[in-house]
């Protein structure tokens, strides 16, 4: 057999990989876009409806509510996760005993599946917490159910975020603090003016990663509330799944998914630009 040249080998590898990627990423993406212009129910025949799904999206109260919930949830969860993770990372990077054992324990939530974690916390919210506080379950109240989702999602997400902050803190050389201490920078001042600027790249990574994960929240909602009570915790992913797959809104929810996709891209580009600029200034 004739020997293949380097370029031929590369081509023989790349083309099938691109074909596979096209088949299970780009093709369904295009199909989703096409379905978004139809009134397809998920079965049977369908007609073209032009831009009507998109026009309806902006007046649909349930869709609007799910966007509001998803953004409120993602924003609060991102801030909560990053604040706690940063504090935890500072602690775990301090002069403590049993450092690696503690890090090992705090990392555990990262490896557990969101659905089962959701079920376990569901029991805490439904039976344990009300017994302690004497109130009713957080999950049955439209004002507090979303907070329960925030708590569970943050509980899991803090694990990885902390680890990334720790690896950031380890890049800060000890003599930076020593030099800072001579200039009188200790405690909060030392953190604000020395530590934080030096770990901004890690801060950006964490903001981008946690925001993106939280915007796509699904498992925890499936386990804790199934979108309730009164659709107050319906995330965009959950709504697309629930109404698109089972609710006969295949076409309409495809349009919702297209908008969701655009929103995700826009946010990612904005975050990357924004954090990129901040890093440059330093």
């Amino acid at each position, binding site marked *: 057999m004739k020997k293949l040249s380097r370029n031929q080998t590369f081509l023989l590898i790349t083309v099938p990989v*691109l074909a596979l990627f096209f088949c299970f990423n780009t093709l369904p993406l295009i199909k989703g876009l096409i379905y978004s212009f139809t009134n397809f129910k998920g079965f049977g025949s369908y007609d073209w409806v032009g831009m009507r799904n998109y026009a309806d999206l902006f007046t649909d109260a349930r869709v609007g509510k799910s966007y509001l919930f998803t953004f409120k949830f993602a924003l609060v969860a991102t801030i909560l996760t990053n604040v706690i993770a940063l504090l935890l990372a500072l602690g775990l990077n301090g002069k403590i005993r049993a450092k690696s054992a503690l890090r090992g324990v705090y990392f555990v939530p990262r490896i557990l*599946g969101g*659905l089962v*974690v959701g079920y376990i916390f569901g*029991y805490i919210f439904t039976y344990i917490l009300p017994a302690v506080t004497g109130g009713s379950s957080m999950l049955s109240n439209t004002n507090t159910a979303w907070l329960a989702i925030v708590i569970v999602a943050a509980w899991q997400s803090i694990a990885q975020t902390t680890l990334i902050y720790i690896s950031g803190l380890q890049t800060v050389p000890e003599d930076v603090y020593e030099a800072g201490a001579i200039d009188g920078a200790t405690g909060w001042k030392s953190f604000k003016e020395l530590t934080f600027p030096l770990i901004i790249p890690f801060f950006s990574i964490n903001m981008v*990663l946690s925001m993106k994960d939280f915007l796509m929240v699904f498992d925890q909602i499936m386990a804790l509330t199934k979108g309730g009570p009164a659709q107050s915790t319906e995330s965009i992913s959950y709504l697309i799944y629930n109404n*698109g797959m089972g609710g006969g809104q295949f076409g309409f929810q*495809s349009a919702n998914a297209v908008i969701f996709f655009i929103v995700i891209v826009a946010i990612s580009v904005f975050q990357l630009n924004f954090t990129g600029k901040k890093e440059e200034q330093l």
Partner: protein
Amino acid sequence: MKQKNKVAATTNWPLTILLIAGCLTVIFPLYMAIVIAFKKPTEMTNDIAGALSLPKSWSLENFAEAMRVTDFWHSLGYSVMITVATVVLAILLHSLAGYAIGRSMAKNKFYKFSYLYIVSGMFVPFAILMMPLVKQTAQMGVDNWFGVILCYLVFYMPMNVMLYTGYLKNIPIALEEAAFVDGATTWQTYWKVIFPIMGPMHATVAVLTALGTWNDVMTPLVIMSGTGANTLPLAQLTFQTQFGTNYNLAFASYLLALLPILIFYLVCQKQIINGVVNGAVK
């Protein structure tokens, strides 16, 4: 100098104690799951003590019942099969693709385009692919575990190809040239020289891909539904109604679902933590 050594050696005990106490937030949900899973329903009185006290006798009955109800061994089999196949194929396929693309993208526009095309897939949320993928996998006759593996290979391709091409930048091309001189083809050079050198990146890819696929609910939920087959997390969702208010049975089942990954974590804690951090930071 003496002063400095003394400072470095001092343990910050209040911080250590605070951090150990903080571990309760991680341990409490797991402790609760364990004690409830070992209890009989009659031990569950309506106060907190009924739920949180240690069981009177540690019986494995709930676990045996949970295994029967959720068809545990079959679900475990599917989970293991899907995760192992995805990880092995991802390492082989994505590293090859990363190699072909990474080695050519500097001088060839086609590969530069291929790289950007695949990596841009990172911004595509599953929600938009979900509904078309369900139709498509059904038409192709792969609406089963095999289709789930194909989907994962595509979903993890953007991240993995990016990680591999990034890692490859630090591997000097001179290493390959030595092999070429000995008459080896590009294909042989890859498997003998490059693939082994990328060992640390294989570990990172394996950890990230394995954690993602093992805990994923959404993909098997929409693609494998109707086949009667479950993955471990999916079984918890499927049999949720059968658990009813028998929380002892439910928690035994949740623990069984968490156990494999917890054991895995105890054995390879260091690799898992490194993998997750490397994947995010690089």
